[in-house]
């Protein structure tokens, strides 16, 4: 799976919760108030479901989930770790 694929998947998922029609991949969705802090848990589940991995406690950091770009980078890292 390429970077672009992750970003589109993340955007499609986030669009279920964000009423703004336009938000950029680098936008901090928590800082901008586009989602509540409770969304963090749902984003962890999204990553786990998409990649089929478990997000361990040391990775439960809001910074990994602040924007589409950061989530994508985190998912790339998780993918690499999971597949060696």
């Amino acid at each position, binding site marked *: 799976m390429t970077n672009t694929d992750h970003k589109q998947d993340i955007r499609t998922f986030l*669009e279920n*919760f964000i009423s703004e*029609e336009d938000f950029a991949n680098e936008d901090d969705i928590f800082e901008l108030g586009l989602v509540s802090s409770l969304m963090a*848990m*749902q984003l962890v*589940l999204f990553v786990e479901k998409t990649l089929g991995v478990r997000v361990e406690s040391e990775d*439960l950091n809001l910074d990994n989930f602040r924007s589409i770009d950061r989530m994508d980078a985190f998912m790339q890292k998780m993918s690499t770790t999971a597949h060696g």
Partner: protein
Amino acid sequence: MDKHASSLHTERRQEVARILAAFAPADIAAWDQAESLPAEVTRSLAQAGLLGTFIESGHGGRNWDAVSFGLLCAEFGQTSLSLLSILTVHSMVLEALRLSGTTQQRADWLPTLTSGEKLGAFALTEPDFGSEATGIQTTLVQCDEGYRVTGRKKWISYAARADVLLVFGKLEDGSAVACLLPTDTEGLSITPMKGLLGFRAAMLGEIEMKDCVIPAANLLGGKGAGINYVAAGALDLGRLAIAFGSLGAMEACVADSVTYASKRKQFGQALAKHQLIQHMLADMITAYKAAERLCLHAAELRSAGSPMAAMETATAKYFTSTHAVTVANQAVQIHGAAGCSAGESRTERFYRDLKITEIIEGSNQMQQLMIAQNGMGEFVQSALRRKRLLAGK
């Protein structure tokens, strides 16, 4: 509810119902009046394997899916909402460990909690902070032995008897953390709380922690993850438990009302033959059926591992607890004076207890905020898709 469940779910619900039927209605009413639960009740639930059903078998659980867990909660709610409260907070501690614990923490804590050898309680609320969980004042200060925990917690279900507390606090740098605090830790004192409107047998307590030392290994979920992940994950399960528990109590209120209205005669005919009573029964039955679908939908999404499950769980908790209070109100009305007497019916207890379900595991106003904020995108996208469809794009 059974007609919508698979045969496996029905079997499991029947197993739970048979176990809970061992508690006589008079005893359940007595727990409420005494504002205490006999220790042998939780011991018998533990022996029956009902206190960690959703945990994987490797850690002593039974691998039950979310629908099975929900139906278990419905049976607890139908029996006693105080009992449901104890199951809920214990399950929230298990869920926090399941989601946020390290491999070592899961191995260390889950078996004894799943077996019910030890029971847990969820200590988030403080005297001055409830819904605004980020405002917690409990502190964890690093020391040679690990951390020193200092602060106060209030309205903590089962605190008066729990063996371990899942405590939320802040580190010196302000980051939120969660930790496991055994109740026999030096510096910890718990005062039972009496005179509550409902959940009287849930043994709520006020907790005072003065320099309670815990090892660093008791920190759960890492620094900064206390509220957004550990508490949020546990509360998500808690909301599912309260939604299904309210549903079970609602079912009991409808069943009791139908039975009573069919037997009691006024003006020469059964109450159920009077149209104004039928009006109330129709509203109660409709509310129950709608709540049942929302609860099962949320549980099915959770069983499938869907990231959308949390939103649907909040919706189910909000709708079910709100309507359960209305249904209990109508049940008391149908029962008349008998509905106001603990010795005559259980509707007065359900009425008092169900009010609490609108407040706990996130007040219903917090659920409304979540539903509105997180649900708007769904409808914007739906409108955009419709626009594109009609434009032929």
